[in-house]
């Protein structure tokens, strides 16, 4: 039993730290640290910096451009990026589609699409959820009907994160209406410039445009854009959802958020004393800190099991629930720490280059918006209730 990382892993940590100190642009980390919005070019800039170092697709196999990191190294990288307030890697191309193509794509697809993910030629978005298929993903109704060398796609996708920036979308479409639910689904790559594709924004409760609806009306998609076999897309869909989950707990993000909360609560006051000396507030912060310390070790235990040849299956469901609840609690406390200044909300103040009126402390500008925005954490990627169903079935055998 040894909770320490090896000397080599610590050396790797120093390497990551040095890289972040050297290469992470201050305007990006400042935005992340203060909960401001990242523009498309901000995200592209960070991807390009990581790609230049060979660290963008850090869980891809070496032959496709991955760095060949162990699970522990990936954990360290994510952790240090969180602490340094680096932008998160936009997951849709790198973390979601990439592994699916590597596992199920044909040679031509791999050769063409993978380099374009790395160099930023394509911005991918995810066409999974539909108005009638949320937690019940296999209920997708968008159809793809074969017509010569093309599929004709009709239907609607929703909750398409950052779809407004994307030129490509990977979709679950129904190619066989006769087959049972999970069969008859195919995994299709669609160029969003094709006639018949329309993107409409969904404004979320805090006023942000992060997600979209995507409509397909008679969209012609070349058959070579089918990944894997026709009607076997559910295999790809599931693989995508379980592939990269060592970081599902988001420990680095929570550690960074907790540091920020502590800084803020030392500056705020209640009863004429720093807020972190208020017994009830301090107790809430301490509780979430303890939960986070425990989760860090739980996460490392899962990683160690993977390194020992195990597969993170349903354990990642535990990490997802735990990790999202902890992050939501930290963001809730951050909102509380702002007191009345959590309410004033100037959306423009969250954009880069804003020089207008500032109300209250700088950290107050995003506190409530971040809290509301991150209610999504326990809903997306399989809601926490779905995760409990998975635990119940896969681990508990109920």
């Amino acid at each position, binding site marked *: 039993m040894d909770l320490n990382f090896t000397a080599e892993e610590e050396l790797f940590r120093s390497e990551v730290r040095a890289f972040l100190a050297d290469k992470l642009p201050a305007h990006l980390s400042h935005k992340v640290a203060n909960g401001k919005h990242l523009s498309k070019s901000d995200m592209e800039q960070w991807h390009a910096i990581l790609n230049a170092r060979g660290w963008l697709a850090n869980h891809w196999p070496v032959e496709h451009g991955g760095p060949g990191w162990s699970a522990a190294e990936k954990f360290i990288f994510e952790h240090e990026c969180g602490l340094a307030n680096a932008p998160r890697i936009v997951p849709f191309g790198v973390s979601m589609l990439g592994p699916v193509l590597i596992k199920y794509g044909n040679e031509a697809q791999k050769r063409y699409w993978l380099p374009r993910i790395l160099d930023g030629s394509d911005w991918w978005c995810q066409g999974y959820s539909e108005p009638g298929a949320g937690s019940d993903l296999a209920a997708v109704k968008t159809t793809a009907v074969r017509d010569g060398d093309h599929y004709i796609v009709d239907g609607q996708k929703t909750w398409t994160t950052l779809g407004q920036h994307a030129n490509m979308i990977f979709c679950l479409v129904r190619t066989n209406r006769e087959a049972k639910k999970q069969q008859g689904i195919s995994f299709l790559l669609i160029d969003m410039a094709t006639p018949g594709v329309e993107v409409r924004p969904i404004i979320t409760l805090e006023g942000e445009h992060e997600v979209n609806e995507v409509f397909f009306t008679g969209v012609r998609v070349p058959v070579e854009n089918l990944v894997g076999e026709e009607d076997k897309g559910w295999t790809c869909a599931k693989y995508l959802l379980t592939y990269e989950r060592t970081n599902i707990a988001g420990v680095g993000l929570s550690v960074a958020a907790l540091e920020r909360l502590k800084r803020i609560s030392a500056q705020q006051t209640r009863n004429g004393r720093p807020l972190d000396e208020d017994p009830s507030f301090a107790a809430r912060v301490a509780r979430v800190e303890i*939960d986070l310390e*425990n989760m860090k070790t739980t996460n490392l235990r899962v990683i160690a099991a993977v390194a020992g040849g195990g597969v993170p299956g349903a354990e990642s469901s535990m990490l997802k629930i735990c990790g999202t609840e902890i992050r939501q609690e930290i963001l809730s406390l951050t909102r509380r720490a702002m007191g009345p200044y959590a309410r004033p909300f100037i959306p423009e103040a969250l954009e880069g280059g804003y020089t207008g009126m500032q109300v209250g402390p700088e950290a107050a500008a995003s506190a409530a918006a971040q809290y509301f925005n991150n209610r999504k954490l326990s809903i997306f990627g399989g809601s926490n209730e779905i995760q409990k169903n998975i635990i119940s079935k896969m681990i508990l055998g109920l």
Partner: protein
Amino acid sequence: MNFEHTEERRMLADSLNRFIAEQYDFETRDRIVKSAPGFSREIWRQFAELGVIGALFREADGGFGGAGFDIAVVFEALGRGLVVEPLLGSAILAGDAIAAAGNEAQRALLADIIDGTSIASFAHDEPGTHYELARVHTRAERSGGQWVLNGAKAVVQQGEHADLFVVSARTAGAAGDEAGISLFLLPAGTPGLSVRGCPVIDGGRVAELTLTDVRLDAGALLGAENQGYLTLERAAGRGVLALCAEALGAMEVVKTATLEYLRTRKQFGTLIGSFQALQHRMADLLLEIEQARSAVINAAAALDAERLPRERALAAAKVSIGRIGALVAEESIQLHGGIGMTWELPLAHYAKRLVMIDHQLGDEDHHLQRFIALGKRLAA
């Protein structure tokens, strides 16, 4: 990073688990807790033979373990069996205090403690101190070449059957001061010591001690005068780890039993484990128990660290175990329904122990405050 125990620890755990499974079943345990002494001398002797007591002491003290993960492995196994024999009081608390602070003559007592012929007891808590380690009212005053002790000690584990007590008393300062606490070795039967025993709800017995002009020779002072606090804190810290690991073992048993019940009990013509309302509660328990396991690992790993990080990790673990222990106890009773309320079901006894662990060496609230205070000192 490695979360596997060493070969030696795995073997120790295996033999202890086997012994408990074969020799310490629920009926045996029930008989033991209802017996007059509230524990079994015979089982105690066998624990000593198995090396269980020795595993809790360092080699320099005559044992062959004593590290955080030795304590964790042993007490997790003891928790699985709801063992009531006085390993915590004799080996961990009193034993560690003697090992850490004793002079040569006092440390010579360790051999008998390790081979089981002598049982030591830790008499520290007092009525009204409510877990606060430095709040010692019992006084020790010099009189001629001797010490005279007056005061009371509360809820002392195995107080009736100990051969020897480690007693804390104030030799300077006010109740609540860390400085000015001294430790003494008090042999059972010393005139002026009165012992009133009673059973506890989670099995076994404790005693209330009253010290009235108890006279001890100068050689009874354990460690330096007025400097007892750090010894107390160290021993109590090891006790906290032991209790947390014990709770983890008990949680494992409760989890297995409750799952088994969900898989076999039928209502409305179907297994109750098929109901989502119950599945989600069970999934929550699983998740919380894994978090508790991580808390124990963190505490065990920190046991030999410097004082502040060590004490902070121990406080974090006790907070986690306090909360999760009560949750597991309450939920498992609820998931069992009526049968969970009965004496005949072993589960109920695990539930009682899990809840009562929060009442030893500081509860969830106590350790949360401690965690906060230690964090401030670490940051300063």
